[in-house]
């Protein structure tokens, strides 16, 4: 437990028959950090998490948590771990209270019930309702309590906020940050939404099609975040003018159709873009978060058929991959 590294994987590989789950995954999560594990659906996030928790068995490679082998010492690891699965299943005829009490009883250490009650109050969750009567969001809240109430050293959260409304999402991340500040636990947070992870994570890794493609810290991460800008111009002719006046880095993903234009912009470029639009004049404007696929297309030269880094085989990162090349910084 005195290891400075919480999670370490070395060439971790999982194949489901002939289908690749993950391949040669090298990951290093420091103790006490919030680590975002990003990737689109089907990238291998859940496979990685299930390997770490010994719910599935590796094909090859090594994985340790707090220095313990994830397969041989899985019980020791799970005593110090709380987990929210991506596909959260419940005993539908049970109440939230019974579910939580049963699952907390399976730890060797006692879980303070008052903490669970407080969290239920924070999330405005009625623990005495049967699970089948709860909405998806409320079920997810039970999952959040399952992760946040036990006094453990590691939280593994697989898409913990899916199905939650924005207000509850904020409550959840607030509670998560509070838990981290109070206990100093390590948090491994998987998501496919970059903008959510960047609110809390110290480091992120990005996984795509079973390969790790990037590890970045918070400042680098913020540069990764793109905005999708859609603008309705005053006239179709303004599209051409806009394209000519756009800074070079914004023209790559610029498309115009009639008087409608759209582009991907880095946050740092938003101010100059808005000034330009103000100068030109526009009828409507919509700025939204981009998807991870947009980011892959922008930074990693990913083709529609999927391979990262052009047609070359996707690279595998090393434990030192934080220092590895970051094409988007150039």
């Amino acid at each position: 437990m005195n290891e400075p590294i919480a999670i370490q994987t070395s060439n971790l590989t999982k194949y489901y028959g002939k289908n690749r789950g993950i391949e040669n995954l090298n990951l290093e999560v420091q103790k006490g950090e919030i680590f975002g594990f990003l990737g689109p659906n089907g990238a291998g996030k859940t496979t990685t998490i299930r390997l770490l928790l010994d719910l599935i068995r590796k094909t090859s490679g090594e994985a340790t948590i707090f220095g313990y082998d994830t397969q041989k010492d899985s019980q020791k690891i799970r005593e110090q771990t709380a987990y929210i699965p991506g596909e959260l299943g419940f005993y539908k005829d049970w109440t939230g209270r019974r579910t939580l009490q049963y699952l907390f009883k399976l730890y060797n250490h006692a879980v303070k019930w008052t903490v669970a009650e407080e969290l239920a109050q924070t999330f405005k969750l009625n623990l005495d309702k049967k699970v089948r009567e709860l909405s998806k969001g409320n079920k997810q809240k039970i999952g959040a309590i399952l992760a946040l109430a036990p006094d453990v050293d590691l939280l593994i959260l697989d898409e913990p906020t899916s199905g939650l409304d924005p207000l509850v999402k904020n409550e959840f991340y607030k509670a998560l940050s509070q838990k981290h500040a109070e206990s100093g636990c390590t948090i491994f947070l998987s998501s496919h939404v970059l903008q959510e992870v960047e609110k809390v994570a110290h480091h992120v890794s990005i996984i795509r099609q079973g390969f790790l493609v990037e590890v970045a810290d918070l400042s680098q991460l913020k540069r990764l975040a793109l905005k999708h800008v859609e603008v309705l111009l005053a006239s179709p002719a303004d599209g051409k003018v806009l394209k000519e006046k756009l800074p070079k880095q914004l023209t790559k993903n610029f498309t115009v159709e009639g008087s409608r234009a759209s582009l991907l912009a880095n946050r740092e470029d938003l101010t100059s873009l808005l000034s330009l639009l103000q100068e030109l004049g526009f009828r409507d404007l919509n700025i939204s978060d981009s998807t991870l696929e947009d980011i892959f297309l922008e930074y990693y030269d990913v083709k529609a058929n999927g391979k990262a880094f052009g047609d070359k085989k996707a690279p595998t990162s090393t434990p030192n991959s934080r220092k590895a090349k970051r094409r988007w910084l150039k």
Partner: protein
Amino acid sequence: MRKQFAILKEDLMDKKWLLMGLGVLIGLLGCYVLYMLNTMDFSQMQAYIDSLPDSVKALLGGQLDVTNPYSLFNAYFFSFLWLYCGIFLVYMASSLVSQEVENNTIDLVLSKPVSREKYLTGKILFLYVFTACLMGLIVALVAAGMGASNVFIEEGLHWERLGAVFLTSTLHLGTSAMTAVFFSTVFLSTKKTIAASIITMFLMFFTGGSYGTASAAGSNPLQYASTWFYYNPAQYFGTGNFGSFAGDVAVLICVNVGLIIASLFVFRKRDIPV
């Protein structure tokens, strides 16, 4: 054992009304059969049996002594316990693990410090407790019915026969349930498990049950591989013959233990699918 008992307790809480309902219903059915026996004319039935062709008598030979209420009650009631309880138990055992996989609830349990072995033994423990309680309820009601039956009082109340039926029926139903547990660890799918378990159950019945062995005139070597061959309430309850009792119990225990070991072995190797 604390975690196994936690799993056992929750499963029992879930199924307590089912257990009581089924136990009381089948027990009352037994009482009704006992009541029918009170109204039967045994001498007329014997005359009817005597009138049957020898080949039919041979088929029934040793299985049905119509002058004896114990034998007749066994033929009407205990011989069909595998239908009354067995199919239901197989259905329940089939869904116990695989439904947790299908509903993803197993992830919540196995992500806690619970080994797969402890999880599965908790489920197995529940199945035995459920079966024993179910048989206990049925046997208790039958015992009450026997105690109130003039026919049985005249014949003599042999509680040890009822005890033997309780033990062997529990073990025999246990083998069916453990077969389902084994298949559920192989398939991790409720539908496939139920299909495989029910097919196995009927194959066992036809190869080792009294009908199968009688029709093959005792020459069928497959009968020794069937658990039905070692389940003989007709002997212990019907005629009070305990000659094969110890051997039958030993074999049934071995089959149960073998299936449990096989299930644990398979389950510890499996990936838990999403």
